[in-house]
């Protein structure tokens, strides 16, 4: 069982940060709604507040790590230009996708959308974390602020969902592969 360095980084970017962020979004939405709802008369405890603050700051860090590893580690491998005359495009995913009309849309629409829309997620969740850090339990007295924070977290979920969906589909059609091979487990020969 082995994995290439490029595939490993793609895994870190997509599964490690991207998928984790998507899962964390649902938790953030539930907690923000539950704790600061005007229908809930109880104020969140200090411990609850500290937990939510830490949770949102961690989400913001994960979102930034997802876009930064994507843009500055994985994307250069994805868009690498093959030397003239290269017949096997397996190591050049963008060119491999564009080489066939049945797959070119994954780049022209999928990657072109993903590479930009993904950045809306860290921007939105950084704002949400900042507002919760600044206002804490006071957020209960600002229903419009709370509504905006919830709305931005929803949009960040949509943006991360679009990026995650296209990332998975693109990597299925033209995986980012290459580099040093990391041997995880030595299999038995049968």
């Amino acid at each position, binding site marked *: 069982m082995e994995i290439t360095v490029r595939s490993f980084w793609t895994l870190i970017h997509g599964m490690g940060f991207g998928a984790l962020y998507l899962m964390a979004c649902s938790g953030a939405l539930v907690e923000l709604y539950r704790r600061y709802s005007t229908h809930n008369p109880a104020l969140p405890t200090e411990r609850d507040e500290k937990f939510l603050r830490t949770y949102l700051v961690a989400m913001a860090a994960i979102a930034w790590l997802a*876009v930064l590893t994507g*843009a*500055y580690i994985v*994307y*250069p491998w994805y*868009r690498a230009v093959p030397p003239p005359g290269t017949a096997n495009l397996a190591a050049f995913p963008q060119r491999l996708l564009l080489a066939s009309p049945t797959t070119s849309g994954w780049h*022209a*629409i999928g990657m*072109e*959308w993903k*590479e*930009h*829309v993904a*950045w*809306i997620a860290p*921007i*939105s969740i*950084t*704002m949400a974390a*900042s*507002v919760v850090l*600044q*206002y804490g339990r*006071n957020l209960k*007295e*600002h*229903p*419009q*602020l709370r*509504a*905006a*924070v919830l*709305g*931005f977290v929803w*949009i960040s979920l*949509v*943006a991360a969902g679009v990026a995650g969906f296209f990332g998975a589909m693109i990597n299925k059609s033209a995986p980012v592969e290459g580099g040093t091979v990391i041997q995880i487990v030595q299999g038995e020969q049968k």
Partner: protein
Amino acid sequence: MNTQSASASATPSARPNGAGAAAILAASVGAFLVAVFAILADRSAAVKSLMIFWKPTGSLSGVTTCAIVLWLASWAILDMRWRNRNVALARVNAVAFALLILGLLLTFPPIADLF
């Protein structure tokens, strides 16, 4: 954006909503600018070339860096101006969500290609 001396939604003892409003509006400006810079880089070879801050990532490096710098700058400026006051948050939210939705839609290539 107009400001008002007291917000209808906040109690007198509550912290002013200005700092939150600044963060919300600035974030939507950042999201919108990602789309605007992406369209500009796609439409103009000169802008595309200017946006290549790091060659392996291409113009994406400049598009996102410029949007982030302007987002943070607008956040700092709005925060300085609004920190200690209540602003008309319903209007700020309306503008912010319009920019955010536009940012989301304008990054979609079939819509971006209309410009």
